[in-house]
């Protein structure tokens, strides 16, 4: 747990490190999913190709989309792209930088899935077992089998338990042949991807370094600005809520005093903070009334009405204020002591 927290803190310290961390986790997750997945070739002529290629190509597509979804910069990119121009220019270089960096990170998990699948060999064995060259590897002149029958027999190659074509072509020979081709494809794919990544990374500083620094700075800026704006709004909302609720309780106690024409009994020795915090609500009925009115009739989202707060449970919405608050309290006190 502690180890996890430390790694998490390290990754959080830098936004790019965090994205790299997510990318690495997704790559590991894709290898784990592949090893946990129970591969089940159907061993039927027409279904093998669909199943094999489906397992090879559909999960990478899903992982690619997931890579975009998990990247919280996608909403930032969309926002920056769609916002009206207003007083601030839009820079297409920044948008391109953000999109490229997200796409590069999202591509890692699919590439890992395809590589692992090809190097393992089961998918290609399943998909292409009917295309094995029987003439070179086995006995093509085996009598009594039509093309369809041969295909049916060959389709069972991945399923060793039900394979019945040992005279046509040995199961191990066919599986070895297909796995060898699959691994060759896999390593070529890995080499190609690595070379591509290397070229992209090494050619960039030679050509567009100044523009790159600019785009990177402004894309970080947009991200930080958005986060700070959200923090400022949260602070504002907290203060807004605090003042709103304080005003609600004050108006509650004022209304109760006005309605019942009596003050709650003040114990002279009991002055101080605790009593202040009770805001004049000191018995069961009053508290229930306050809670009911909070539910039935929440106050308006307006902290500075002209004089009195409007919209609490008793006074109702939109009543014109009559007296400023301080004199009203004094009047109430006068009535009670009479």
């Amino acid at each position, binding site marked *: 747990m502690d180890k996890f927290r430390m790694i998490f803190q390290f990754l959080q310290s830098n936004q790019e490190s965090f994205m790299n961390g997510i990318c690495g986790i997704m790559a590991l997750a894709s290898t784990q999913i592949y090893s946990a997945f129970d591969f089940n070739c159907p061993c039927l002529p027409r279904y093998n190709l669909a199943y094999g290629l489906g397992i090879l190509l559909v999960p990478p597509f899903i992982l690619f989309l997931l890579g975009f979804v998990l990247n919280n910069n996608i909403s930032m990119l969309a926002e920056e792209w769609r916002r009206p121009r207003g007083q601030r220019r839009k820079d297409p270089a920044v948008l391109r930088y953000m999109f490229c960096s997200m796409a590069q990170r999202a591509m890692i998990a699919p590439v890992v899935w395809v590589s692992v699948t090809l190097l393992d060999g089961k998918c290609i064995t399943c998909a292409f077992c009917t295309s094995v060259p029987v003439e070179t590897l086995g006995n093509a002149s085996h009598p009594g089998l039509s093309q369809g029958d041969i295909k049916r027999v060959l389709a069972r190659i991945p399923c060793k338990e039900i394979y019945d074509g040992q005279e046509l072509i040995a199961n191990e*020979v066919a599986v070895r042949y297909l796995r060898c081709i699959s691994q060759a494809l896999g390593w070529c794919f890995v080499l190609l991807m690595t*070379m591509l990544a290397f070229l992209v990374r090494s050619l960039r500083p030679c050509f567009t370094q100044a523009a790159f620094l600019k785009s990177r700075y402004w894309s970080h*800026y947009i991200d930080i600005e958005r986060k700070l704006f959200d923090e400022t709004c949260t602070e504002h909302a907290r203060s807004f809520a605090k003042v709103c609720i304080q005003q609600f309780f004050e108006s509650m106690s004022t209304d109760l005093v006005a309605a019942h024409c009596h003050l709650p009994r003040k114990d002279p020795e009991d002055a101080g903070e605790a009593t202040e915090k009770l805001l004049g609500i000191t018995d069961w009925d009053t508290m229930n009334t306050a809670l009911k009115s909070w539910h039935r009739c929440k106050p308006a989202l307006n902290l500075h009405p002209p004089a009195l707060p409007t919209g609490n449970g008793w006074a109702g919405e939109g009543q014109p204020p009559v007296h400023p608050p301080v004199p009203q309290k004094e009047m109430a006190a006068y009535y009670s002591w009479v």
Partner: protein
Amino acid sequence: MDRFRMIFQYFQSNSESVMNGICGLLTLASIKMYTCIEFSCPCLPQYNMAYGLGIMFVPPIALFLCGLILNRQSLVMLEEWSRPQGRRKKDLAVIRYLCSSIMQRAMVAPAAWIIVTLLDGKCLICAFSGSMDPENFVDFASASPVQVQQLLAKVPCKDEELMRNNTSHKAVSSYLRCWSQALGWSILLILIIAAFLARWLRPCFNQAALMQARHWSNYIDIEQKIFEETCCEHSRLFAHKCILHFFESMRQEIKLHSFSLPRQGKGTEGEEDLLRGITDQDQVNKLLKTWYYEKPPL
């Protein structure tokens, strides 16, 4: 846990240590990959050599490129190499030093793969079983040339019915594995001696120039890191000022357009500052809409 934290902090403390750490991880990953991936020789005359040599040489190239990509210093070196001269001279010795240190680190994982492959022996047996001289082995000497090729090609695959009790197949296999392991150990010995000599003899040649190159390459690396951190700090402050300015301008606008005076309450002084004059639902909505439609200029 403590040990892990100590190791982690040690690696973080120095950029070179981080690079060494990555290099070590890549080496371990390459060994793990070799053990996980099931080696399956095709056992066919035309394909054996291609497969065996392919498995021995293609992954090291990919690992070498990975080592270059994952090394942060390669970017630093390329930037230093391609930057315009400006007011700072370019020192080729520094670039050469960086290049050699990057290459050395990137070569460790491929070398580990090749050595593990050779010590294991399967690749060489697969690649060269077809090139053995059949005269030396009893069972193969009596077969026809075409048959001999087929039989030799099937040597790496132990599960063939024909091969199970065949002593010649075991002989070929052992012979090739012996060569493979001898080659593997020799390469390992040569590499270690080369590394030892390089490290031992380096102080005898040009130690001062080497120290200078190392110092300035560290400097370039640190300078770039600090520049990035300063840019981050700067953009944070910039954003903070921009947002405060935006809220202020909103407050001015509201003051201009509305006639109500804010109520001065005793306990709410601190809260008033945080509220920044924006105190009802409509004002907040207007603020959020303006933020989206008309972001303030930079």
